Protein backbone atom coordinates (compact mmCIF):
# COMPACT_ATOMS: atom_id res chain seq x y z
CA UNK A 1 0.00 0.00 0.00
CA UNK A 2 2.93 2.31 0.77
CA UNK A 3 6.15 1.75 -1.14
CA UNK A 4 9.12 4.04 -0.97
CA UNK A 5 11.87 2.87 -3.29
CA UNK A 6 15.37 4.17 -2.92
CA UNK A 7 14.33 7.78 -2.48
CA UNK A 8 16.93 10.50 -2.17
CA UNK A 9 16.37 14.17 -1.55
CA UNK A 10 18.92 16.88 -0.95
CA UNK A 11 18.50 20.47 0.09
CA UNK A 12 21.64 22.11 -1.19
CA UNK A 13 24.48 20.06 0.20
CA UNK A 14 22.34 18.56 2.96
CA UNK A 15 21.20 15.04 2.19
CA UNK A 16 17.81 14.75 3.86
CA UNK A 17 17.08 11.32 2.38
CA UNK A 18 19.76 8.98 1.16
CA UNK A 19 18.33 5.96 -0.60
CA UNK A 20 15.38 5.43 1.71
CA UNK A 21 13.29 2.31 1.13
CA UNK A 22 10.11 1.52 3.04
CA UNK A 23 7.13 -0.76 2.60
CA UNK A 24 3.84 -1.04 4.41
CA UNK A 25 1.20 -3.64 3.62
CA UNK A 26 -2.51 -2.90 3.53
CA UNK A 27 -4.09 -2.31 6.93
CA UNK A 28 -0.79 -2.11 8.79
CA UNK A 29 0.91 0.64 10.72
CA UNK A 30 4.44 1.50 9.76
CA UNK A 31 6.26 3.48 12.41
CA UNK A 32 9.03 5.75 11.23
CA UNK A 33 11.26 6.39 14.18
CA UNK A 34 14.13 8.81 14.20
CA UNK A 35 15.63 11.85 15.90
CA UNK A 36 15.02 15.39 14.70
CA UNK A 37 16.55 15.97 11.29
CA UNK A 38 16.69 12.29 10.42
CA UNK A 39 14.42 12.72 7.38
CA UNK A 40 11.00 11.85 8.79
CA UNK A 41 9.23 14.98 7.67
CA UNK A 42 10.93 14.94 4.28
CA UNK A 43 9.62 11.41 3.80
CA UNK A 44 6.13 12.56 4.71
CA UNK A 45 6.35 15.48 2.31
CA UNK A 46 7.42 13.25 -0.53
CA UNK A 47 4.67 10.73 0.14
CA UNK A 48 2.08 13.48 0.25
CA UNK A 49 3.37 15.10 -2.99
CA UNK A 50 4.47 18.26 -1.21
CA UNK A 51 8.02 17.60 -2.35
CA UNK A 52 9.31 15.63 -5.26
CA UNK A 53 12.19 13.20 -4.78
CA UNK A 54 15.54 13.79 -6.50
CA UNK A 55 15.85 10.07 -7.10
CA UNK A 56 13.70 7.01 -6.64
CA UNK A 57 9.92 6.82 -6.47
CA UNK A 58 7.20 6.53 -3.88
CA UNK A 59 3.84 4.88 -4.45
CA UNK A 60 0.59 5.13 -2.54
CA UNK A 61 -1.98 2.45 -3.37
CA UNK A 62 -0.04 1.77 -6.56
CA UNK A 63 0.07 5.38 -7.74
CA UNK A 64 3.39 7.08 -8.21
CA UNK A 65 3.98 10.49 -6.65
CA UNK A 66 5.98 11.33 -9.75
CA UNK A 67 3.52 10.44 -12.47
CA UNK A 68 0.09 10.48 -10.75
CA UNK A 69 0.26 13.00 -7.92
CA UNK A 70 -3.46 13.67 -8.18
CA UNK A 71 -4.37 10.00 -7.70
CA UNK A 72 -1.95 9.85 -4.80
CA UNK A 73 -3.74 12.82 -3.21
CA UNK A 74 -7.11 11.12 -3.69
CA UNK A 75 -5.96 8.03 -1.81
CA UNK A 76 -4.18 9.76 0.97
CA UNK A 77 -4.94 11.75 4.09
CA UNK A 78 -2.32 13.85 5.83
CA UNK A 79 -2.16 15.01 9.37
CA UNK A 80 0.95 17.10 9.73
CA UNK A 81 3.09 18.19 12.62
CA UNK A 82 1.09 21.34 13.09
CA UNK A 83 -2.63 20.77 13.27
CA UNK A 84 -3.97 21.90 9.90
CA UNK A 85 -7.14 23.49 11.14
CA UNK A 86 -8.40 26.98 10.51
CA UNK A 87 -8.71 28.54 13.94
CA UNK A 88 -11.38 30.99 12.90
CA UNK A 89 -13.59 28.24 11.49
CA UNK A 90 -15.75 26.03 13.65
CA UNK A 91 -15.06 22.31 13.86
CA UNK A 92 -17.93 21.67 11.47
CA UNK A 93 -16.83 24.35 9.02
CA UNK A 94 -13.31 22.96 8.95
CA UNK A 95 -14.44 19.46 8.03
CA UNK A 96 -17.08 20.72 5.64
CA UNK A 97 -14.47 22.76 3.80
CA UNK A 98 -12.15 19.77 3.44
CA UNK A 99 -15.04 17.64 2.16
CA UNK A 100 -15.90 20.28 -0.43
CA UNK A 101 -12.28 20.43 -1.54
CA UNK A 102 -12.35 16.67 -2.05
CA UNK A 103 -15.13 17.37 -4.54
CA UNK A 104 -18.11 16.44 -2.36
CA UNK A 105 -21.31 18.43 -2.79
CA UNK A 106 -22.57 20.51 0.13
CA UNK A 107 -24.92 17.87 1.46
CA UNK A 108 -22.49 14.98 1.32
CA UNK A 109 -19.76 17.13 2.85
CA UNK A 110 -22.08 18.18 5.68
CA UNK A 111 -23.19 14.61 6.37
CA UNK A 112 -19.61 13.38 6.40
CA UNK A 113 -18.54 16.24 8.67
CA UNK A 114 -21.24 15.38 11.19
CA UNK A 115 -20.39 11.70 11.04
CA UNK A 116 -16.72 12.44 11.76
CA UNK A 117 -17.53 14.92 14.52
CA UNK A 118 -19.54 12.19 16.21
CA UNK A 119 -16.88 9.52 15.90
CA UNK A 120 -14.16 11.88 17.11
CA UNK A 121 -16.30 13.01 20.07
CA UNK A 122 -16.51 16.57 18.81
CA UNK A 123 -20.25 16.87 18.25
CA UNK A 124 -20.69 19.03 21.36
CA UNK A 125 -18.21 21.58 20.07
CA UNK A 126 -19.15 21.33 16.38
CA UNK A 127 -20.24 24.98 16.34
CA UNK A 128 -17.27 26.33 18.30
CA UNK A 129 -14.26 27.91 16.66
CA UNK A 130 -11.38 25.49 16.61
CA UNK A 131 -9.06 28.23 17.90
CA UNK A 132 -10.67 27.75 21.31
CA UNK A 133 -9.90 24.03 21.38
CA UNK A 134 -7.33 22.27 23.52
CA UNK A 135 -4.34 20.74 21.77
CA UNK A 136 -5.87 17.28 21.95
CA UNK A 137 -9.20 18.39 20.49
CA UNK A 138 -7.47 20.28 17.72
CA UNK A 139 -5.44 17.21 16.89
CA UNK A 140 -8.57 15.08 16.79
CA UNK A 141 -10.17 17.57 14.44
CA UNK A 142 -7.06 17.52 12.29
CA UNK A 143 -7.09 13.72 12.17
CA UNK A 144 -10.76 13.81 11.24
CA UNK A 145 -9.82 16.17 8.41
CA UNK A 146 -7.27 13.65 7.17
CA UNK A 147 -9.88 10.93 6.72
CA UNK A 148 -12.78 12.94 5.32
CA UNK A 149 -12.54 11.16 1.97
CA UNK A 150 -11.94 7.73 3.55
CA UNK A 151 -8.43 7.47 2.14
CA UNK A 152 -6.70 4.12 1.91
CA UNK A 153 -3.54 5.56 3.41
CA UNK A 154 -3.19 8.02 6.24
CA UNK A 155 0.12 9.72 6.94
CA UNK A 156 0.59 11.07 10.44
CA UNK A 157 3.61 13.26 11.01
CA UNK A 158 4.46 13.30 14.71
CA UNK A 159 0.80 13.19 15.69
CA UNK A 160 1.36 13.60 19.41
CA UNK A 161 4.19 16.13 19.48
CA UNK A 162 3.23 18.88 21.88
CA UNK A 163 0.23 17.10 23.34
CA UNK A 164 -0.37 16.48 27.02
CA UNK A 165 -0.67 12.84 28.16
CA UNK A 166 -4.44 12.92 27.88
CA UNK A 167 -4.27 14.28 24.32
CA UNK A 168 -1.71 11.65 23.46
CA UNK A 169 -3.90 8.80 24.68
CA UNK A 170 -6.82 10.27 22.73
CA UNK A 171 -4.76 10.37 19.57
CA UNK A 172 -3.58 6.81 20.05
CA UNK A 173 -7.17 5.64 20.38
CA UNK A 174 -8.06 7.37 17.14
CA UNK A 175 -5.15 5.79 15.31
CA UNK A 176 -6.05 2.36 16.63
CA UNK A 177 -9.61 2.73 15.43
CA UNK A 178 -8.41 3.85 12.00
CA UNK A 179 -6.35 0.70 11.68
CA UNK A 180 -9.26 -1.40 12.86
CA UNK A 181 -11.15 -0.06 9.86
CA UNK A 182 -8.45 -1.30 7.50
CA UNK A 183 -6.63 1.97 6.84
CA UNK A 184 -2.92 1.77 6.22
CA UNK A 185 -1.03 4.21 8.41
CA UNK A 186 2.43 5.67 8.23
CA UNK A 187 3.33 7.27 11.50
CA UNK A 188 6.44 9.27 12.23
CA UNK A 189 7.47 9.75 15.81
CA UNK A 190 10.35 10.52 18.09
CA UNK A 191 8.65 8.64 20.87
CA UNK A 192 9.57 5.03 21.21
CA UNK A 193 6.61 4.33 23.39
CA UNK A 194 4.34 5.52 20.62
CA UNK A 195 5.96 3.38 17.95
CA UNK A 196 5.92 0.42 20.34
CA UNK A 197 2.26 0.89 21.07
CA UNK A 198 0.91 1.61 17.59
CA UNK A 199 3.21 0.26 14.91
CA UNK A 200 3.18 -3.25 13.48
CA UNK A 201 6.47 -2.61 11.86
CA UNK A 202 9.08 -0.05 12.80
CA UNK A 203 11.76 1.47 10.64
CA UNK A 204 14.43 3.35 12.55
CA UNK A 205 15.91 6.05 10.36
CA UNK A 206 18.86 8.32 10.78
CA UNK A 207 20.59 10.59 8.28
CA UNK A 208 17.94 9.78 5.70
CA UNK A 209 18.33 6.03 5.63
CA UNK A 210 16.87 3.04 7.42
CA UNK A 211 19.30 1.74 10.02
CA UNK A 212 17.10 -0.97 11.51
CA UNK A 213 13.67 -2.38 10.99
CA UNK A 214 11.38 -5.03 12.29
CA UNK A 215 8.61 -5.46 14.80
CA UNK A 216 8.95 -3.80 18.17
CA UNK A 217 9.74 -7.19 19.70
CA UNK A 218 12.41 -7.98 17.15
CA UNK A 219 14.06 -4.64 17.63
CA UNK A 220 14.02 -5.02 21.38
CA UNK A 221 15.52 -8.47 21.16
CA UNK A 222 18.34 -7.04 19.10
CA UNK A 223 19.08 -4.69 21.98
CA UNK A 224 19.90 -7.56 24.31
CA UNK A 225 18.30 -9.52 27.09
CA UNK A 226 16.40 -8.62 30.19
CA UNK A 227 18.26 -7.12 33.11
CA UNK A 228 17.81 -7.24 36.82
CA UNK A 229 18.28 -3.98 38.69
CA UNK A 230 18.67 -3.97 42.44
CA UNK A 231 18.90 -0.78 44.44
CA UNK A 232 20.59 -1.30 47.81
CA UNK A 233 19.98 0.69 50.93
CA UNK A 234 23.67 1.00 51.88
CA UNK A 235 26.52 1.80 49.55
CA UNK A 236 28.70 -0.53 51.59
CA UNK A 237 26.64 -3.51 50.48
CA UNK A 238 27.11 -2.87 46.77
CA UNK A 239 30.04 -5.24 46.19
CA UNK A 240 28.46 -8.01 48.22
CA UNK A 241 25.24 -7.62 46.28
CA UNK A 242 27.16 -7.71 43.00
CA UNK A 243 28.71 -11.00 44.09
CA UNK A 244 25.27 -12.43 44.85
CA UNK A 245 23.99 -11.39 41.42
CA UNK A 246 26.99 -12.85 39.61
CA UNK A 247 26.76 -16.18 41.39
CA UNK A 248 23.04 -16.42 40.79
CA UNK A 249 23.33 -15.57 37.10
CA UNK A 250 26.29 -17.86 36.51
CA UNK A 251 27.64 -18.10 32.96
CA UNK A 252 30.49 -15.79 33.99
CA UNK A 253 28.22 -12.74 33.68
CA UNK A 254 29.51 -9.62 35.38
CA UNK A 255 27.31 -7.38 37.46
CA UNK A 256 27.62 -3.65 36.97
CA UNK A 257 27.71 -1.29 39.89
CA UNK A 258 26.41 2.23 39.90
CA UNK A 259 27.46 3.67 43.26
CA UNK A 260 25.78 6.98 42.60
CA UNK A 261 22.37 5.37 42.52
CA UNK A 262 23.28 2.46 44.82
CA UNK A 263 22.34 0.19 41.98
CA UNK A 264 23.70 -3.13 40.83
CA UNK A 265 22.47 -4.68 37.65
CA UNK A 266 23.14 -7.73 35.57
CA UNK A 267 22.01 -9.27 32.32
CA UNK A 268 19.55 -12.01 33.16
CA UNK A 269 18.51 -14.42 30.43
CA UNK A 270 15.94 -16.07 32.71
CA UNK A 271 15.16 -12.93 34.60
CA UNK A 272 12.01 -13.68 36.54
CA UNK A 273 13.38 -16.89 38.09
CA UNK A 274 16.68 -15.27 38.82
CA UNK A 275 15.03 -12.31 40.50
CA UNK A 276 13.35 -14.56 43.08
CA UNK A 277 16.66 -16.31 43.82
CA UNK A 278 18.58 -13.08 44.09
CA UNK A 279 16.08 -11.57 46.50
CA UNK A 280 16.00 -14.54 48.84
CA UNK A 281 19.79 -14.74 48.79
CA UNK A 282 20.15 -11.05 49.63
CA UNK A 283 17.59 -11.48 52.36
CA UNK A 284 19.45 -14.47 53.78
CA UNK A 285 22.65 -12.42 53.93
CA UNK A 286 20.80 -9.53 55.55
CA UNK A 287 21.67 -7.09 52.79
CA UNK A 288 18.78 -4.60 52.82
CA UNK A 289 17.24 -3.91 49.41
CA UNK A 290 15.34 -0.76 48.56
CA UNK A 291 14.07 -1.70 45.18
CA UNK A 292 14.41 -4.58 42.77
CA UNK A 293 13.13 -4.82 39.26
CA UNK A 294 13.26 -6.83 36.11
CA UNK A 295 13.70 -4.67 33.10
CA UNK A 296 13.10 -5.67 29.54
CA UNK A 297 15.00 -3.67 26.97
CA UNK A 298 12.91 -0.83 25.68
CA UNK A 299 12.91 0.67 22.24
CA UNK A 300 14.86 3.46 23.89
CA UNK A 301 17.76 1.09 24.24
CA UNK A 302 17.48 0.14 20.58
CA UNK A 303 17.13 3.69 19.47
CA UNK A 304 19.96 5.06 21.49
CA UNK A 305 22.28 2.25 20.51
CA UNK A 306 21.49 2.59 16.80
CA UNK A 307 21.52 6.35 16.49
CA UNK A 308 24.44 6.85 18.83
CA UNK A 309 22.48 9.48 20.68
CA UNK A 310 23.13 7.65 23.93
CA UNK A 311 26.07 9.91 24.60
CA UNK A 312 23.81 12.91 24.50
CA UNK A 313 21.13 11.27 26.60
CA UNK A 314 23.33 9.89 29.39
CA UNK A 315 26.72 11.52 29.27
CA UNK A 316 27.62 11.17 32.93
CA UNK A 317 28.55 7.76 34.23
CA UNK A 318 31.06 5.41 32.78
CA UNK A 319 28.94 2.60 34.11
CA UNK A 320 26.13 0.84 32.36
CA UNK A 321 23.52 3.44 33.00
CA UNK A 322 20.96 2.92 30.30
CA UNK A 323 17.67 4.74 30.19
CA UNK A 324 15.22 3.31 32.65
CA UNK A 325 11.59 3.07 31.69
CA UNK A 326 10.83 5.97 34.03
CA UNK A 327 13.36 8.04 32.20
CA UNK A 328 12.12 6.99 28.79
CA UNK A 329 11.12 10.04 26.93
CA UNK A 330 7.48 10.86 27.32
CA UNK A 331 5.86 13.63 25.35
CA UNK A 332 5.40 16.62 27.56
Amino acid at each position, binding site marked *: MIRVENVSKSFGSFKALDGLTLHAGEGTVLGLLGPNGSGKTTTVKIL*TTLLSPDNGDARIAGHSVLTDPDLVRRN*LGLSGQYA*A*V*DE*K*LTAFENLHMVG*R*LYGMNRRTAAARANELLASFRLTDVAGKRSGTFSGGMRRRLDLAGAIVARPKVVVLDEPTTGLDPRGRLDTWDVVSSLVADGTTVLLTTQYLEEADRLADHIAVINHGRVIAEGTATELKQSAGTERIDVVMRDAADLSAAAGVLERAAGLGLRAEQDPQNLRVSIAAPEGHRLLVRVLSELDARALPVDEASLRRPTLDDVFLRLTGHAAAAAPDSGTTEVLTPEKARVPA
Partner: protein
Amino acid sequence: MSAITAAFRDSSVIARRNLINVLRTPGALVTGIVQPVMFVLLLGFVFGGTLGGDQYRSYLIGGILAQTLTFNASFTAVYLAKDLQLGLIDRFRSLPMSRVAVILGRTSSDLSTSVLSVAVTLLCGVAIGWRITTGPVSALAALALLLLFAFAVSWIGAVIALTARSVEVAQSLGLVWLFPVTFVSGAFVSVSSLPGPLRVIAEWNPVTAVATAARDLFGNAAPAGFGAPGGWPAENALLYSVLCSVGIIAVFAPLAIAQYRRISKR
Protein backbone atom coordinates in the same frame (compact mmCIF):
# COMPACT_ATOMS: atom_id res chain seq x y z
CA MET B 1 -15.87 17.77 -13.90
CA SER B 2 -13.63 19.90 -16.05
CA ALA B 3 -10.52 21.43 -14.58
CA ILE B 4 -11.92 24.93 -14.96
CA THR B 5 -15.18 24.25 -13.13
CA ALA B 6 -13.18 22.49 -10.42
CA ALA B 7 -10.86 25.48 -10.16
CA PHE B 8 -13.79 27.87 -9.72
CA ARG B 9 -15.57 25.60 -7.26
CA ASP B 10 -12.47 25.06 -5.15
CA SER B 11 -11.65 28.77 -5.29
CA SER B 12 -15.11 29.66 -4.08
CA VAL B 13 -14.72 27.22 -1.16
CA ILE B 14 -11.44 28.93 -0.24
CA ALA B 15 -12.91 32.41 -0.77
CA ARG B 16 -15.76 31.49 1.56
CA ARG B 17 -13.27 30.35 4.16
CA ASN B 18 -11.39 33.65 3.80
CA LEU B 19 -14.59 35.68 4.15
CA ILE B 20 -15.56 33.82 7.31
CA ASN B 21 -12.09 34.66 8.60
CA VAL B 22 -12.55 38.33 7.75
CA LEU B 23 -15.96 38.48 9.42
CA ARG B 24 -14.53 36.90 12.56
CA THR B 25 -11.47 39.18 12.64
CA PRO B 26 -13.13 42.53 11.99
CA GLY B 27 -10.11 44.34 13.42
CA ALA B 28 -8.20 43.38 10.28
CA LEU B 29 -10.49 45.63 8.26
CA VAL B 30 -9.66 48.74 10.23
CA THR B 31 -6.76 49.71 7.95
CA GLY B 32 -8.93 49.25 4.90
CA ILE B 33 -11.48 51.65 6.35
CA VAL B 34 -9.33 54.14 8.21
CA GLN B 35 -6.78 54.71 5.50
CA PRO B 36 -9.09 56.16 2.83
CA VAL B 37 -10.80 58.35 5.42
CA MET B 38 -7.44 59.57 6.60
CA PHE B 39 -6.21 60.38 3.11
CA VAL B 40 -9.43 62.12 2.13
CA LEU B 41 -9.22 64.35 5.17
CA LEU B 42 -5.46 64.92 5.07
CA LEU B 43 -5.19 65.70 1.39
CA GLY B 44 -8.58 67.34 1.11
CA PHE B 45 -8.01 69.82 3.90
CA VAL B 46 -4.23 70.06 4.27
CA PHE B 47 -3.49 70.50 0.56
CA GLY B 48 -7.02 71.24 -0.59
CA GLY B 49 -6.91 74.85 0.54
CA THR B 50 -4.09 75.80 -1.83
CA LEU B 51 -5.11 73.41 -4.59
CA GLY B 52 -8.66 74.50 -5.25
CA GLY B 53 -10.87 74.02 -2.19
CA ASP B 54 -14.19 72.28 -2.71
CA GLN B 55 -13.47 71.63 -6.34
CA TYR B 56 -10.20 69.91 -5.41
CA ARG B 57 -11.86 67.78 -2.74
CA SER B 58 -14.38 66.57 -5.26
CA TYR B 59 -11.61 65.89 -7.77
CA LEU B 60 -9.55 64.13 -5.10
CA ILE B 61 -12.04 61.27 -4.57
CA GLY B 62 -11.21 59.51 -7.85
CA GLY B 63 -7.53 59.66 -6.91
CA ILE B 64 -8.08 58.36 -3.39
CA LEU B 65 -10.09 55.46 -4.81
CA ALA B 66 -7.30 54.48 -7.21
CA GLN B 67 -4.71 54.85 -4.47
CA THR B 68 -6.67 52.96 -1.81
CA LEU B 69 -7.39 50.04 -4.11
CA THR B 70 -3.72 49.83 -5.10
CA PHE B 71 -2.81 49.80 -1.43
CA ASN B 72 -5.23 46.93 -0.89
CA ALA B 73 -2.78 44.75 -2.82
CA SER B 74 -0.76 44.74 0.39
CA PHE B 75 -3.64 42.98 2.15
CA THR B 76 -3.43 40.19 -0.39
CA ALA B 77 0.33 40.04 0.11
CA VAL B 78 0.07 39.82 3.87
CA TYR B 79 -2.89 37.45 4.12
CA LEU B 80 -1.62 35.09 1.47
CA ALA B 81 1.80 35.06 3.14
CA LYS B 82 0.03 34.26 6.40
CA ASP B 83 -1.90 31.45 4.74
CA LEU B 84 1.32 30.03 3.35
CA GLN B 85 2.80 29.81 6.82
CA LEU B 86 -0.12 27.93 8.30
CA GLY B 87 -0.14 24.17 8.68
CA LEU B 88 -3.40 24.46 6.76
CA ILE B 89 -1.55 25.08 3.53
CA ASP B 90 0.07 21.63 3.70
CA ARG B 91 -3.39 20.16 4.07
CA PHE B 92 -4.56 22.09 1.01
CA ARG B 93 -1.55 20.97 -1.00
CA SER B 94 -2.10 17.35 -0.09
CA LEU B 95 -5.72 17.52 -1.25
CA PRO B 96 -6.78 16.64 -4.78
CA MET B 97 -7.94 20.21 -5.27
CA SER B 98 -7.17 22.77 -7.93
CA ARG B 99 -3.68 24.26 -7.61
CA VAL B 100 -5.13 27.66 -8.47
CA ALA B 101 -7.73 27.72 -5.72
CA VAL B 102 -5.66 28.97 -2.80
CA ILE B 103 -4.61 32.09 -4.74
CA LEU B 104 -7.74 32.71 -6.79
CA GLY B 105 -9.79 32.24 -3.62
CA ARG B 106 -7.61 34.82 -1.91
CA THR B 107 -7.69 37.47 -4.66
CA SER B 108 -11.46 37.00 -4.98
CA SER B 109 -12.21 37.28 -1.29
CA ASP B 110 -9.93 40.31 -0.98
CA LEU B 111 -12.36 42.08 -3.30
CA SER B 112 -14.65 42.30 -0.29
CA THR B 113 -12.09 44.53 1.44
CA SER B 114 -11.95 46.65 -1.68
CA VAL B 115 -15.75 46.97 -1.84
CA LEU B 116 -15.67 48.18 1.72
CA SER B 117 -12.85 50.64 1.00
CA VAL B 118 -14.74 52.05 -2.00
CA ALA B 119 -17.93 52.42 0.03
CA VAL B 120 -16.12 54.19 2.87
CA THR B 121 -14.25 56.51 0.50
CA LEU B 122 -17.45 57.48 -1.31
CA LEU B 123 -19.36 58.08 1.93
CA CYS B 124 -16.50 60.19 3.15
CA GLY B 125 -16.53 61.99 -0.20
CA VAL B 126 -20.23 62.74 0.09
CA ALA B 127 -19.58 64.21 3.52
CA ILE B 128 -17.04 66.69 2.12
CA GLY B 129 -19.09 67.63 -0.91
CA TRP B 130 -18.26 65.07 -3.59
CA ARG B 131 -21.20 64.28 -5.91
CA ILE B 132 -21.92 62.13 -8.94
CA THR B 133 -22.79 64.59 -11.69
CA THR B 134 -23.33 62.04 -14.44
CA GLY B 135 -25.90 59.24 -14.35
CA PRO B 136 -26.28 55.90 -12.55
CA VAL B 137 -24.96 53.92 -15.54
CA SER B 138 -21.73 55.90 -15.61
CA ALA B 139 -21.40 55.61 -11.86
CA LEU B 140 -21.87 51.84 -11.95
CA ALA B 141 -19.33 51.62 -14.76
CA ALA B 142 -16.90 53.53 -12.54
CA LEU B 143 -17.45 51.08 -9.67
CA ALA B 144 -17.00 48.10 -11.99
CA LEU B 145 -13.76 49.55 -13.33
CA LEU B 146 -12.47 50.22 -9.81
CA LEU B 147 -13.15 46.66 -8.69
CA LEU B 148 -11.59 45.19 -11.82
CA PHE B 149 -8.49 47.24 -11.09
CA ALA B 150 -8.53 46.17 -7.43
CA PHE B 151 -8.74 42.52 -8.50
CA ALA B 152 -5.82 43.03 -10.88
CA VAL B 153 -3.43 44.65 -8.38
CA SER B 154 -4.35 42.00 -5.87
CA TRP B 155 -2.51 39.51 -8.12
CA ILE B 156 0.61 41.65 -7.74
CA GLY B 157 0.15 41.25 -3.99
CA ALA B 158 -0.16 37.49 -4.50
CA VAL B 159 3.13 37.32 -6.39
CA ILE B 160 4.79 39.34 -3.63
CA ALA B 161 3.48 36.93 -0.98
CA LEU B 162 4.61 33.89 -2.92
CA THR B 163 8.05 35.38 -3.53
CA ALA B 164 8.53 36.67 0.01
CA ARG B 165 7.50 33.49 1.77
CA SER B 166 7.35 35.16 5.16
CA VAL B 167 4.77 37.50 6.55
CA GLU B 168 7.32 40.13 7.60
CA VAL B 169 8.99 40.28 4.21
CA ALA B 170 5.63 40.27 2.43
CA GLN B 171 4.52 43.12 4.63
CA SER B 172 7.45 45.38 3.79
CA LEU B 173 7.75 44.35 0.14
CA GLY B 174 4.00 44.71 -0.15
CA LEU B 175 4.18 48.33 0.95
CA VAL B 176 7.35 49.89 -0.51
CA TRP B 177 6.30 49.89 -4.15
CA LEU B 178 2.92 51.39 -3.34
CA PHE B 179 4.16 54.88 -2.47
CA PRO B 180 6.01 55.70 -5.70
CA VAL B 181 3.34 53.98 -7.79
CA THR B 182 0.47 55.90 -6.23
CA PHE B 183 2.21 59.24 -5.73
CA VAL B 184 3.96 59.51 -9.11
CA SER B 185 0.55 59.68 -10.72
CA GLY B 186 -2.37 61.96 -11.28
CA ALA B 187 -4.14 60.63 -8.22
CA PHE B 188 -3.62 63.78 -6.14
CA VAL B 189 -2.12 66.41 -8.39
CA SER B 190 -2.17 67.40 -12.03
CA VAL B 191 0.21 65.26 -14.04
CA SER B 192 1.23 68.32 -16.02
CA SER B 193 2.74 69.85 -12.88
CA LEU B 194 5.36 67.08 -12.67
CA PRO B 195 8.89 67.52 -14.07
CA GLY B 196 9.87 65.83 -17.38
CA PRO B 197 10.51 62.11 -16.89
CA LEU B 198 8.20 61.86 -13.89
CA ARG B 199 5.43 63.36 -15.97
CA VAL B 200 5.81 60.69 -18.65
CA ILE B 201 5.78 57.95 -16.03
CA ALA B 202 2.74 59.48 -14.37
CA GLU B 203 0.93 59.83 -17.67
CA TRP B 204 1.30 56.12 -18.39
CA ASN B 205 0.80 55.05 -14.80
CA PRO B 206 -2.32 52.87 -14.57
CA VAL B 207 -3.15 54.58 -11.27
CA THR B 208 -3.47 57.88 -13.18
CA ALA B 209 -5.66 56.23 -15.78
CA VAL B 210 -7.96 54.67 -13.18
CA ALA B 211 -8.25 57.95 -11.26
CA THR B 212 -8.93 59.88 -14.47
CA ALA B 213 -11.46 57.33 -15.72
CA ALA B 214 -13.28 57.33 -12.38
CA ARG B 215 -13.42 61.16 -12.40
CA ASP B 216 -14.72 61.14 -15.97
CA LEU B 217 -17.39 58.55 -15.13
CA PHE B 218 -18.45 60.28 -11.91
CA GLY B 219 -18.27 63.67 -13.65
CA ASN B 220 -15.75 65.34 -11.35
CA ALA B 221 -13.88 68.11 -13.15
CA ALA B 222 -10.38 69.26 -12.30
CA PRO B 223 -10.08 72.46 -10.31
CA ALA B 224 -9.23 75.59 -12.22
CA GLY B 225 -5.50 75.92 -12.65
CA PHE B 226 -4.92 72.16 -13.01
CA GLY B 227 -3.29 71.65 -16.39
CA ALA B 228 -5.36 69.40 -18.60
CA PRO B 229 -3.86 65.92 -18.66
CA GLY B 230 -2.39 65.15 -22.03
CA GLY B 231 -1.42 62.15 -24.10
CA TRP B 232 -3.14 59.02 -25.29
CA PRO B 233 -3.66 57.44 -21.83
CA ALA B 234 -5.46 60.54 -20.56
CA GLU B 235 -7.63 60.85 -23.63
CA ASN B 236 -8.56 57.16 -23.49
CA ALA B 237 -8.46 56.76 -19.73
CA LEU B 238 -11.26 54.19 -19.50
CA LEU B 239 -9.94 51.99 -22.29
CA TYR B 240 -6.38 52.30 -21.04
CA SER B 241 -7.27 51.41 -17.45
CA VAL B 242 -9.26 48.35 -18.56
CA LEU B 243 -6.30 47.30 -20.73
CA CYS B 244 -3.90 47.81 -17.84
CA SER B 245 -6.06 45.78 -15.46
CA VAL B 246 -6.40 42.92 -17.91
CA GLY B 247 -2.68 43.15 -18.67
CA ILE B 248 -1.74 43.00 -14.99
CA ILE B 249 -3.92 39.91 -14.52
CA ALA B 250 -2.49 38.31 -17.66
CA VAL B 251 1.06 38.76 -16.38
CA PHE B 252 0.75 38.30 -12.63
CA ALA B 253 -1.84 35.50 -12.40
CA PRO B 254 0.26 32.96 -14.33
CA LEU B 255 3.32 34.18 -12.44
CA ALA B 256 1.58 33.63 -9.11
CA ILE B 257 0.35 30.18 -10.07
CA ALA B 258 3.76 29.13 -11.38
CA GLN B 259 5.37 30.40 -8.19
CA TYR B 260 2.82 28.52 -6.06
CA ARG B 261 3.58 25.32 -7.91
CA ARG B 262 7.29 25.90 -7.52
CA ILE B 263 7.23 26.52 -3.77
CA SER B 264 5.03 23.49 -3.24
CA LYS B 265 7.72 21.38 -4.88
CA ARG B 266 10.56 22.75 -2.80
